C-alpha cells in the first residue's frame, strides 16, 4: 500500500525529470543547429570568439606539441642516419648540378641587370616576411589548415601568403594576437589564381581536401604537359605573383596540381607581408600604416624564430627570390629578410 502510494507520488517527479532532460536535449540540438547556421553564414562574433579562444589555448597546444615534435625529429634523425651514405652521394651529385646552375644564374642575372638598365625599368617593391612554426594541425575531414605561432603582434594580417622552402603553402584566414590560422592550398575553400607552364595559361587551382589541387577554368584548347610549373598569377590582388605552387599532373580533361610543399608535415613557414588594397576585403582591421609591402614596425622588433628550418624547408627567402627571378635578399639578423622581387 505504502509502496503503491510512494510510486504514485514518485512518478510525476520522475516524468518531470525526464521531460526536463528531453527539453534540455532538444535545446542542445537546437543550439548546435543554430551554431552550424551561424558558422555557415560567417558570423563575425563567432569568428572573434574562436580567435580569442584559440589565442588562449596556444601555450597548451605548444606544450602538447613538444613531445610529438621531438619524437618526429628523433625518427627523422634516425632515418637520416640510416640513409647517410646514400644521401652523401646524392648531395655530391646535386652539388655538381647546382654549381652549373649557379654559373647560369649569374650569367642571367648580369644579362637581366643590363637589360633593365637599358629599359630604365622601375624596381618592384621589396617583399618582407616573418618566419614561425606550425603549432597545431587542424585538418578535419573537410578542413586543411594549420595554426602558426605568428599573429597580429608579428604584423600578420588576414589574406597574407604563407610559404615554406618548397613553395606556397596557403594563406592566412584568421589572425589572433599571437597566432594565425593558415588555410592550406588543398583545403576545400582554397582558390588560387595561377599561371601554368611556360605559356602562362591562366587557371584556378582549387583544393578539394585531397593531396592534389584541381585546375579549374582552363581556357578551351589549353595545352598542358605533365611536369609544367604552376605559379601564382597575382590576379586576385591578394597573393604576390610568381610564387611556386606545384607541378601539373594528370591527363587532358583532368589536370591536377601536385603542390611542391609537403602540406601534411609542415614545420617552419614564412608569412609574406604583401599589402594590397584588396586586403581590405579580407582583413576587416584595415591595412597597417606605411607603404605597401613594408615590414610592419611590430614585426621589425619581433622575436626571431626559434627553430632552425629543416633541410626540406630551408631558407624561404631563396624561394621567394627565386620565383621572382631577381637578386637575392639581404639576410637580417632576426630572420626577417628583405627579398627583392
Amino acid at each position, binding site marked *: 500500500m505504502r509502496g503503491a502510494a510512494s510510486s504514485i507520488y514518485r512518478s510525476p517527479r520522475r516524468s518531470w525529470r525526464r521531460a526536463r*532532460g528531453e527539453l*534540455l*536535449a532538444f535545446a*542542445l*540540438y537546437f*543550439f*548546435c*543547429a*543554430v*551554431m*552550424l547556421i*551561424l*558558422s*555557415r553564414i560567417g558570423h563575425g562574433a*563567432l569568428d572573434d570568439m*574562436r580567435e580569442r*579562444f*584559440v589565442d588562449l*589555448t596556444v601555450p*597548451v*597546444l605548444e606544450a*602538447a*606539441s613538444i613531445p*610529438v*615534435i621531438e619524437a*618526429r625529429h628523433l625518427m627523422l634523425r634516425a632515418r637520416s642516419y640510416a640513409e647517410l651514405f646514400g644521401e652523401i652521394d646524392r648531395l655530391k651529385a646535386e652539388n655538381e648540378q647546382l654549381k652549373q646552375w649557379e654559373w647560369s644564374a649569374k650569367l642571367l642575372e648580369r644579362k637581366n641587370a643590363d637589360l633593365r638598365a637599358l629599359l630604365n625599368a622601375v624596381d618592384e617593391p621589396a617583399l618582407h616576411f616573418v618566419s614561425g612554426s*606550425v*603549432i*597545431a*594541425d*587542424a*585538418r*578535419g*575531414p*573537410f*578542413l*586543411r*589548415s*594549420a*595554426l602558426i605561432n605568428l599573429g597580429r603582434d608579428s604584423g600578420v594580417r588576414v589574406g597574407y601568403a604563407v610559404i615554406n622552402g618548397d613553395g606556397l603553402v596557403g594563406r592566412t584566414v*584568421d589572425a589572433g594576437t599571437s597566432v594565425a*590560422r593558415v588555410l592550406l592550398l*588543398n583545403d*576545400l*575553400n582554397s582558390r588560387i589564381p595561377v599561371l601554368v607552364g611556360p605559356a602562362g595559361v591562366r587557371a584556378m587551382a582549387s583544393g*578539394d*581536401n*585531397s*593531396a592534389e589541387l584541381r585546375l579549374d577554368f582552363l581556357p578551351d584548347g589549353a595545352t598542358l604537359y605533365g611536369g609544367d610549373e604552376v605559379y601564382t598569377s597575382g590576379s586576385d590582388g591578394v597573393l604576390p605573383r610568381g610564387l611556386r605552387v606545384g607541378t601539373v599532373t594528370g591527363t587532358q580533361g583532368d589536370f591536377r596540381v601536385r603542390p611542391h610543399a609537403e*602540406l*601534411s*608535415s609542415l614545420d617552419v613557414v614564412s608569412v609574406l607581408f604583401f599589402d594590397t588594397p584588396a586586403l581590405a576585403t579580407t582583413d576587416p582591421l584595415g591595412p597597417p600604416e606605411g607603404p605597401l609591402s613594408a615590414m610592419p614596425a611590430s614585426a621589425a622588433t619581433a622575436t626571431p624564430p626559434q627553430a632552425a628550418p629543416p633541410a626540406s624547408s630551408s631558407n624561404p627567402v631563396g624561394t621567394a627570390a627565386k620565383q621572382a627571378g631577381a637578386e637575392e635578399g639581404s639576410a637580417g639578423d632576426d630572420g626577417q629578410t628583405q627579398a627583392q622581387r
Partner: protein
Amino acid sequence: MSTIFPALSVLFAVLATAVRWGLPADATFILPLIVVTMVFCWRIIPDAVLPLSVCMLLGLLTDVMSGGPLGFFALMTLIAGSVGGRLRSLIAPHELRILWLVWVVLAASLGLFGWLLASLYFFRWIDWWPILFGTLASIALFPVVLRGLGWIRQGSIGPAHSAMFRSWS
C-alpha cells in the same frame, strides 16, 4: 564518480586532435571520431557521469580547435551521448559484443550523417574516403577505447569492467 574524470579524459583527447601528429590526409577523421567514441563509451559505462551539455561542449571545443564548422562535432558528440545514455539502461555493461555491434551501427550512421551534413554545409559532395576510414578506425578501436576508459574508472567499476572483458575472451 564526478563528471571531472570523464570530462577531463575527453578534453585530453580533444587537445590531442589539434596536436601535429603528421597523419596523412586520409586519416584526419580518426582523432575527432575517437572523441565521439569516448563520449559514447562514458555514457554507457555504469555510474560514469558525463552530462549531455558537457558532451556538447566537448564537441564544440573539437570544432573550435579544428577550425571546422562550429556545431558539427558538437552535434556528433550530442548524438553519441544521447544514444549512449539511452542504452545504459537497456544493455548490460558486460555485453561487449552487443555494445560493439551498437557502435558499429551508430558509427556508420554518424559517418553517413556527417558526410551528408558536411556536404550540405559546403554545398558540394565531400570526399567520403577519410570519413569512411575514420569510421572504420573508430569501430576497430572501440574495445581499446572502452578498455582505456574502464581503466580510468577501475576504482569504481572494476568488477563490471572485468566482467565485460571476461565475456569477450
